Structure formats: structure tokens, C-alpha cells
């Protein structure tokens, strides 16, 4: 079975740990660079009409690419066994779903509020991936799960 581990800045350790505990399977470490951010920076420089030095966008892309490689290195080291590495760039949520086409399992971490149980614990990208994943999904907390008493009370009309 192909196990895709979505490596993100906030929650990669927990995902790698979860993948390590799964017996067997071929692990694929996936990281996506958000190109929207790169373009906002490049666009903002263009708006300065030459007040900035040229070649801003490529430098940002190079830095994000290097960070991606470093993060995948760290993830592979933490996994402790050889794994396939995929570094993509584009719209994060769509790239992740696309990378799961032939996967048996996707491991991903919650990326929102990690102090309370509830829907806010999922950011928009993670929610999109959960909603559209074409395979089974293992959703982990990035750190210790919050206490049960952070569960919000039931709405008053439905006791």
C-alpha cells in the first residue's frame, strides 16, 4: 500500500511519527510550496515600479525550494527508513489531492487551533483535502490532543 505523508511546516513530525508506526507500506513524503505566496511577493515588487531591485520572485522561489528540500530531509531522517520524496509547487490543497491518486492512505495533521476540539482545528487547505481525498485518511493532531473538556456544549435545543 502506498502511504502518502503530507509534510507541512506545522505538523510534519506528528505525521511522520504516525506513518512510522504503520506496519509495511511504501511511504511517500509529500510537500507543496504555495505558489500564490510567491506571486504576491513578486507582484508587490512590481508595484514598486522599479524602486526595488530586480529578480525578487526567483529568489523567493529558490528560498522556498531550499526550505522544501530541508523539510523533506528532516522528515526522511525522522522516518528512519528510505522513502520516496515528492516536492510539488502550486495550489497546496489541489496538489495534495492530485498526489493521492494512487495512494492507499493519506496521513495529514490538523493545522488550525490545536488547543480546543472542534472545527477550527482544520484550516481551509486541510479541510479541502479531507473533503476531496480519493483515498483513506489518517488525521492526526500536531501535538498532544486537547482535553475532552474543551468540547463545546451541545446546542440548547438539542439536549
Amino acid at each position, binding site marked *: 500500500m502506498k502511504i502518502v505523508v503530507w509534510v*507541512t*511546516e*506545522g*505538523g*510534519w*513530525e506528528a505525521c511522520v511519527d504516525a506513518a512510522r508506526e504503520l506496519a509495511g507500506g511504501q511511504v511517500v513524503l509529500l510537500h507543496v510550496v*504555495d*505558489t*500564490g*505566496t510567491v*506571486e*504576491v*511577493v*513578486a*507582484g*508587490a*515588487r*512590481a*508595484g*514598486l*515600479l*522599479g*524602486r*526595488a*531591485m530586480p529578480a*525578487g520572485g526567483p*529568489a*523567493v522561489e529558490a*528560498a*522556498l525550494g*531550499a*526550505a522544501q528540500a*530541508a*523539510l523533506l530531509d*528532516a522528515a526522511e531522517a525522522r522516518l528512519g527508513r528510505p522513502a520516496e520524496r515528492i516536492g510539488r509547487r*502550486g*495550489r497546496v490543497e489541489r496538489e495534495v489531492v492530485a498526489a493521492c491518486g494512487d495512494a492507499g492512505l493519506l496521513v495529514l495533521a490538523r*493545522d*488550525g*487551533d*490545536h*488547543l480546543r476540539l472542534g472545527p*477550527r482545528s482544520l*484550516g*481551509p487547505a486541510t479541510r479541502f483535502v479531507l473533503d476531496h481525498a480519493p483515498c483513506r485518511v489518517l488525521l492526526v493532531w*500536531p*501535538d498532544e490532543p486537547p482535553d475532552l473538556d474543551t468540547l463545546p456544549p451541545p446546542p440548547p435545543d438539542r439536549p
Partner: protein
Amino acid sequence: MVLLTPVVLATATGMRVRAKPHLYACTHLANSASLLLPVSNLTNLLAFTASGLTFAGFAGLMALPWLAVVGTEYLLFRRFFADDLAAAAHRAPAVEPVRAPRFALVVLGATLAGFALAEPLGVHPAWVAAGGALVLAARRLARRPLDEAGRLVRAANLPFCAFVFGLGVVVLAVRSGGVGDLVGRLVPDRGGPLGLLAVAVLAAVLANVVNNLPATLMLTPLVAHSPGLVLAVLLGVNVGPNLTYVGSLATLLWRQILHARDHPPAAGDFLRLGALTVPACLLAGVAALWLGLRVSGTT
């Protein structure tokens, strides 16, 4: 923006936190946080002489609006990027400490102090700036004259100086025509709270329709009779650009951004962020400016 973006990017990736909110903050603050000093932004420099204020007087009046705008940006960014910022940060790999460039920082500090100190003696800030630049350049030239001379000339960005000069001529021509009359009719005469707000909003709109440089050149002569209104123009042209993608709907720009790539940019986030922050920053900035003008007795 030029200096800080790579630093912020390196810090964010080094700490393994999401770079997105921090890079967006760089692009926003490059505009809106450049209110404080006459040398903080080219727009300020272009309007500084028309304001008739001293270097210290300008900074004194702009300090409060600057704090109000930066504070508003901070609060709204915390809200807008709550998910990205709430993501758990983990121990980052150790980074080797780097020595601060002490010489450059001392010269920079001395130049900034020089702006305020030299002006009462009748020395124009341009001479102080030239002095600081000469000291920095001399040290580099002493090391490797040929290499450094080429880099310094490129860094001086002479084509851009020619561009600003040309822009001034073009804007002068536009201003003496019908467009200038139209804009002139929209500019209020007096700097009450509503007048300040009207000028700031007008400047912000113009900065988005053309770009903030032409907008500054266009509006400054129309409000030169009132320092308060000049500062309100600067609030508009510095905060306004965050409203649309990059403060300019100039076709050149959109062509570059939309067509040079194989897919449209994630403009949605930027536009929503702009719609959230720009009106709030303009209101907070104008209120703070009005308060500062009242307290100092400037009109």
C-alpha cells in the same frame, strides 16, 4: 520590503513556520508602515517639500498615524491568518548566529540623526543622505574599487531616477488638463476630520487606479496650502496600494502577473485582506493624524 522580505523568508523557513502570513505582512507593511519619516518612502520624499514641515516636524506628526496603522494591520493580520499562525510551531533546527553589520548600522543611525539635527542649521537632508552614502561607498570602494564601483552604479538605479523625472513631466501635463480640474474639484480646502478623510480616500483610490507615485505627484500641489492635507495624501497613497493586488491596476502589471504564468495568481486572499485592512487603516490613520494636528496646532 526590498531588504526585509528575504530576511523574513529565511527566518520563517528556518523556524519551519508557514511563510505565508509573514510574506503578506512584508508586502503590506512595505506600503502602510512607511509613513513615519520623509525618507521612508519615495512618496513621502516627493511630498515632503510641499508640506513645508521640518524633518522632525514631519516625523512628529506622522508618529501617531504610523502607530495606529501598524497596530491596525497587526490586529487584522492576527485575525485573518489565525489558522496559519495557530499551527503548532516545533523546535527549529539551531541556526548559527551571524554578526550584525555594525559599521553599516552605525552610519545608518548617524544619517537618520543627521536628518533631524542638520535641518535647523540650514543643511538640506539631501546633503546628509549623500554624506551617509559616501561613507558607506568609500569603505567598499577601498576594498575592491572596480567590482564595487560597478555594483554601486547599478544599485543607484539611475534608470529609475530618469523614470521618476519623466513621470513628473507626464503628470504635470495630465494635471493641467481636464483630469487635473476634476481631481482639483474633489479636493477639500480645509483639513477638518472629514476633509482629511476625504483627501486620504481620494489619494487611496487614485493610488489604485494609477500607481501611488503618479498619485502623489498629482495631488500634492493641490493640497500644498495645508500640511495636514499633504500628510492625509500620504496616508492615502501609502495605505491605499494594499487594496488591490499591488496598488496599481496598470495594464503592464496585470499583464506581467496574469499572463507570464500558466495559472492566475492567488489574488483572492490578497484582495480580501486588502478590503479588510485598507479601510480600517485609513480610518485609524486619519483619526490619529487629526488628533496629532489638533494637539500640535498645525492645520
